[in-house]
């Protein structure tokens, strides 16, 4: 046989093999990845199995959007919610027609979602629960991410990683976040005292709302080396008496700075806070303990959890950083 043919054949086989490898690699259809697509259990304990790695993902909540983009799934996301604003300015994308919007976060537009023909939908619990039931009845694959704590967020990242063929990326992301949080926890363990912290959800003349032990922020405050003054309240978010805040006398007041660059935060200016009737004896007001926090970062159970814990720790223990 002519050696030319042998070389050509080997070459052709090699090309086919490489192409096949590249194809398999990029379509993500390795055995372990395919296996990971089966029996995905989400926060509603619902079991979902996918046939192939999804290429048309709809993300219905800001926290789920942060996770898919943190995993580098940028080009697979076809729609986000109107509340999504990180890591990109999605409202501008939506206006430019680069990405679709599911309509209102609290009441997603089912027809828009159906018209996008998604092969994976990521949603959160609470107000979206009825929509999720409908979507599942219609046969869509929905994963509900509704974590109660930091551990839950890590499980969510792993779940999304499994569902999208990004298991390695998910593991790396989880490692990174966990290491950063552990570093903070180690550092604040050296602190001489733990400041008492009041997290303000809402304050106006009609009512005051704060976070109890079941709220997401409670764990963030603990990890950052603080003590939530309402940690004894076995509740999530609740309307509290203002008297209780004054009596419990927090060293730090966390004030969410209403993101969005849209109007003033609900608490007005720091001077307004200092001028609140009857609050003048509070330690945080007397000793410069008013801390503004980004309302979205502290409210979202997503991959930026390490960022906010670092920020809080710096505010609670400036001497250690």
């Amino acid at each position, binding site marked *: 046989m002519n050696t030319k043919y042998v070389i050509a054949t080997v070459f052709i086989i090699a090309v086919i093999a490489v192409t096949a490898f590249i194809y398999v690699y990029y379509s993500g259809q390795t055995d372990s990845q395919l296996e990971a697509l089966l029996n995905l259990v989400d926060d509603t304990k619902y079991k979902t199995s996918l046939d192939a790695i999804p290429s048309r993902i709809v993300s219905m909540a800001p926290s789920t959007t942060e996770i898919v983009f943190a995993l580098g799934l940028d080009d697979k996301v076809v729609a986000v919610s109107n509340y999504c604003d990180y890591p990109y300015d999605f409202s501008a994308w939506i206006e430019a027609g680069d990405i679709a919007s599911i309509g*209102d976060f609290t009441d997603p537009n089912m027809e828009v979602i159906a018209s996008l023909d998604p092969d994976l939908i990521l949603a959160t619990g609470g107000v979206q629960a009825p929509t999720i039931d409908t979507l599942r009845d219609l046969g869509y694959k929905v994963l509900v991410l509704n974590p109660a704590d930091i551990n839950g967020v890590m499980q969510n990242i792993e779940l999304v990683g499994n569902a999208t063929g990004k298991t390695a990326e998910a593991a790396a992301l989880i490692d990174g976040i966990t290491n950063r949080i552990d570093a903070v926890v180690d550092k604040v363990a050296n602190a001489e005292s733990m400041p008492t912290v009041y997290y303000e959800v809402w304050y106006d003349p009609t*009512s005051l709302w704060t976070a109890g032990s079941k709220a997401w922020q409670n764990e963030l405050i603990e990890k950052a080396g603080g003590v939530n003054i309402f940690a004894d309240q076995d509740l999530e978010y609740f309307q509290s008496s203002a*008297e209780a805040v004054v009596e419990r006398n927090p060293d730090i007041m966390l004030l969410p700075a209403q993101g969005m660059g849209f109007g003033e935060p609900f608490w007005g200016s720091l001077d307004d806070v200092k001028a609140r*009737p*009857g609050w003048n004896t509070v330690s945080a007001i007397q000793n410069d303990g008013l801390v503004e926090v980004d309302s979205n970062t502290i409210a979202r159970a997503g991959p930026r959890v390490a960022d906010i814990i670092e920020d809080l720790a710096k505010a609670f223990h400036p001497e250690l950083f």
Partner: protein
Amino acid sequence: MGADSTENAYFRRASRWKFIVILLIVALIVTMIISLNVGYAHISFADILKILGKQVPILNGYVDSTLAALSPDELRTFQANAGIILQMRLPRIIAGVVVGAGLAASGVVYQGVFRNPMADSYVLGVSAGAACGASISILFGTGFTVFGLRVVQVAAFIGALFAMFLVYNISRVGSRVPVLTLLLCGIAVNFFLYSIVALLEVIAGDELHAIVFWLIGGFSNPLWSDIWAVFPFIMIGIAISYFYARSLNLLAMGEETAQHLGLNVERVKQILLVLASLVTAAAVSLSGLVGFVGLMVPHVTRLIVGPDHRILFPASAIFGSIFLVICDALARVVATPFASTLELPVGIITMLFGAPFFILLFRKKKESYAL
């Protein structure tokens, strides 16, 4: 002889009315003092007296001399308690008095003018107008103040007056304003404005909770300036309305009869509706939508003192104050037995405790009941 006995009966009744009003005022003061004692923070009655005494020029020196004996820690607690009593509880109680009196008094006026037991202080679209004004201001204009007042308060007030104006003008037929058209237009405008509120809620995004909290109603953290802003409207409104108590009695016999007895029905109706709406608007601009006070308090008072507006009107206003101050005290402490700092919106309490109380009174009375 006939004239004499009528006159005697009138004087006996009038002296009984004076007695009732004095009794109610005493009850109100007692309620206020007791509710000053009620709250999450445990502050002894002696401390409350000291805190109040410190505000009185003559007692001031005595209180200071007792404070000198305190340790720095105790002094801090005393100062925190003084803040709680004077800046937190007292404004709430005064707000309760003002709003309760306003809602109840305007409830009496609306029920009297409309001769309808279902009429309450929100019947002319005032609540929806206030809600709409407040929602718009929360969405588009937070952060600035008008004459030192919060824009939400001003917007709610304007919204309420606007709704009343709208209803009144739609239902006017020539120079007359038939009560039936007023009621129906009120309902229609209510629905219309609430649909706008619902629309605003949908597009509100981040500001949604601000709207929802306002709609729930309450006055947990009022500023003294918020209270002083509405105080003159409510007090003057109530005072002027009181002079129309006789006219309300005449109206109760029917508009035609009242007209024949020499009452300028249309004019009196106009004046009373504007006054009552002004009072309601001022009240809800301070407290948000607190339900049931304007409907229930006049009925309960009527069961006790009878339907004569000369006593019904002042008694309802004072009873409204007492009722709302008690409800707010309950809102502050219902959860404390469970070691909780939870506080309920006062609107929930007014309905939760008000409705059964109302039903109980009706069951006891059992006689036929008329306006």
